[in-house]
C-alpha cells in the first residue's frame, strides 16, 4: 500500500507512538495516507480507538514479526 509519509515508532513505549503519529497526521492533507511502524503491544488496540475518535480511517493493519504496520487515511 502507498503512503504519503512514514512514522517510525519502533521501540517507543506508549504514549510516544500516538504522540508522534498525531504530529505527523497534522502535517498531511485530508485524504492522504500515513504509515506507522510500531512495536508497542498496546498500539494494536489504541490506534483504532484513537483513529475512531478523530474520524480517521485505518485502511490496513498488519503484524510482521512483531512490527505493527498501520495505514491511516486522514479525515
Amino acid at each position, binding site marked *: 500500500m502507498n503512503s504519503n509519509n512514514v512514522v517510525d515508532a519502533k521501540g517507543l*513505549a*506508549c*504514549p510516544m507512538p*500516538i504522540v508522534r503519529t498525531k504530529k505527523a497526521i497534522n502535517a498531511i492533507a485530508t485524504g492522504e495516507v500515513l504509515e506507522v511502524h510500531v512495536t508497542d*503491544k*498496546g498500539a494494536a*488496540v489504541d490506534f483504532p*480507538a*484513537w483513529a475512531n*475518535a478523530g474520524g480517521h480511517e485505518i485502511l490496513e493493519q498488519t503484524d510482521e514479526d512483531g512490527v505493527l504496520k498501520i495505514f491511516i487515511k486522514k479525515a
Partner: protein
Amino acid sequence: MTVSKWTAADVARKVIDNKQLFILDVRNADAFADWKIEGHQFDYVNIPYFELLDGVEDILPQIPIDKDVLVVCAKEGSSIMIANMLAEEGREVGYLAGGMKSWSTYIEPIKVGDLANGGELYQFVRLGKGCLSYMVISEGEAAVIDAVRFTEVFTNFAAEKNVTIKHVFDTHLHADHISGGRHIAEATGATYYLPSKDAEEVVFDYTALEDGLMVQIGASKIDVGALYSPGHTIGSTSFIVDGRYLLTGDILFIDSIGRPDLAGLAEDWVGDLRETLYSRYRELAEDLIVLPAHFMIIDELNADGTVAKRLGDLFADNHGLNIEDEATFRSMVTDHLPPQPNAYQEIRQVNMGKITPDNDEQTEMEIGPNRCAVR
C-alpha cells in the same frame, strides 16, 4: 505542582483501609470496561490519553480537588504524561508506577487467624487479579497453598517468619493464573502436590494429591487435610486446616461458585460441581471458615482486607448454593458463562509445564480479571 509517584502497595492500602480515591484511567475504553482497579470508595473517570494530547483544560471540572487523584494507564508512560499536564494546570495528582501491570502483580499478605499452639494462617491477597494464596505456619514449618507465580513473595515471607516450607499444594490445575507451586518446591526442597486427575498431561514430577491425604505442619500437629471436591476441574481438592478453615480452591467463593468449563468439559463436570456444593460440603461443620482461591468483586473483602466467611453463612447467602432445581443449576453454570480468563488455554499449558514463556509474556498472559466464577 509536582506529580507524586504511587506504588501498587500505596493503592492497596487505600483499598484495604477503605479510603477514598479518585482514579483518572487513561487507557482505552475497552480496556477500562474489561478490568480496572477496584476499591470500596473509589470513583472513576475514563478518558483515553490520546484524547488529551491537545490539553487537559476541558476535563479539569471532572477532576476533584478535595480528594486524592491518581492517574492510571497500562504501563505508566501515558499516566505520567497526563499527570504532568494536570500538574501544569495547578492540580495535585499522582500516577501509578508500573501501571496496571504492576497492579496485576501486587500481593498483600494478611493474617487470617491464629492456629493451635502458636500456629498462624496467612492469606496472600493479589488485589489486581483477585487471586488468593495461603501459608500455614507452625513451629518452624510451613505449607503453601495455591501460590501465584511470584515465588519470592512466599520464600521471603517464610524467611521473615523463620520457617521452612515443607509442603506446597495446588488445589487444581489453574487456568486464570500461572502457578508458582512447582518452583517454590524446587527452590525449597518441599514436596509439591497436585491432584492426579488434573495432572494427566503435566510433564514434570509431582506428588499425587489424593482424597484423605493428611500432612502435619510443625511438631504440634496442625493438620492440613485433603477433601476431594471436583467440579471446577475433575481433580479439584479442598483442604481443611486445623479443623477450622476450609480452603475451597475454585469450587466455592464468597459470593459466587466455580465454573466448570475452563478445561472444556462443562457438561461432564456440572454433576460433580453440584455434588460437591450440595452434598459433600453440606456434610461439613457449618462453623468452618471458607477461604477461597479467588474473589471476584471488592465487596467480597472483609473490613481487614481478608476474604473469608463462615460456611453456614454461605449456605444461607450464596446464590449458587441455593438453587433447588438441578436443571436450573445446570443451565446457570453451563449456558450463561462470562468470558473466559485472558489466555486461559495457554496458562493451563504453562501450568502443565508444556510451555515456558518469559516473564514479560507471563505478565501479558495474566492481564485482566480471573473470571473463574459464575454468579
